[in-house]
């Protein structure tokens, strides 16, 4: 079987305007890359919410990253202050990465 390594899969749910700031953090902790996915709609304590193309003001995105444990926990520490003030949602899961030595 092909070689795999264990890595962390970090998922950050964030207001789209905040994305550039998160990316700055990602670069600071030297994580190799990230991918952004748009959220179409959602709901939370503030009630239901729909993405609309016109205003775009309330757009939300998911930032997805694969990183090793050290960088993942470093990143979590760094982003913690933004968590409460900006209502972010961060989850960290375990995944096997195939030939993932570069992360």
């Amino acid at each position: 079987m092909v070689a795999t390594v264990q890595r962390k899969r970090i998922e950050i749910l964030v207001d789209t305007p905040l994305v550039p700031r998160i990316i700055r953090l990602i670069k600071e902790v030297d994580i190799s890359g990230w991918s952004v996915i748009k959220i179409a709609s959602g709901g939370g304590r503030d009630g239901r919410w729909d993405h609309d193309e016109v205003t775009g003001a309330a757009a939300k995105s998911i930032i997805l990253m694969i990183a090793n444990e050290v960088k993942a926990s470093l990143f979590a520490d760094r982003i913690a202050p933004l968590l409460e003030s900006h209502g972010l949602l961060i989850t960290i899961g375990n995944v096997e990465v195939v030939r993932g030595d570069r992360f």
Partner: protein
Amino acid sequence: MSIYLMAAIGLKGGVEVASTGFSTELASAAIAGITLGFTLPILAFFMLRSIGKLGAIDSGAVAAHYGSVSVVTFVTAIELLSNQGMQPDGFMVGVMALMETPAIITGLLLARAYAKKTEAEKGTVDQSGNGSNLLHEVLTNGSVILLLGAFAIGMVAGEAGFEPIKPLFAIGFNGVLCLFLLDMGLIAARRLLQTKKITIPLASLAVLLPIINGSIGTLVGTMIGLDPGSAAILGVLSASASYIAVPAAMRLALPQADPGIYLSMSLGITFPFNIIFGIPLFAAQANFLAPILG
């Protein structure tokens, strides 16, 4: 579609400025616009705190919205006024662009100055990432750049360069605007139905603030010698509330402010109010004031 509207209005404005040239009117309109952008949020802030019973953070965020401008409202006003023979000057496009950001600064300063200790502490946390960063992010906002870019292209191309592409922009414009308003109206209605954040005082302010701000804007416009059409547009700009650039800025800089409040007020109430009642009101005011002060 919004790209189309932005590009069209920017181009038109640029072409007109190219054919009329710069003028002292332009300069005084620009200064008036910036001044209004910086000062209108102050009045709004205190009304939101006292009448609206909002905290400092939410008041600052909402005030920033009302000090800034709505592009769609502006475009609609231009069309309606032109149809009534009150064609505003082309340079008002530039004035609109100038009025987009100052209110954000005032709103933030007010929020920080008046926020209670605990709120202020949280505020500090994200000040780290703010300041010049925020300004950069707001100024490089896609729509502002598009608008100014189109304006610049229009100015360079002038009447002659605009000729070949005129049909697209001239003919389709009203229709696209119409579709866009329909769309916006649906969004506004949905937002209003879903929200539970809007109290009666807040709903009243969402009507009162545009009336007050708009009247101030029209008055100022007339006093600095603008023609009635342009003065009315300055009123409309003052009355209108942002729902694109400012909400995004607030999510960054005042994340504790509740989007349910500022979006519902600006998009759900003030936007339709301005389209239906505001524009004719400020047009009438401008016509009334012109012979007295003009």
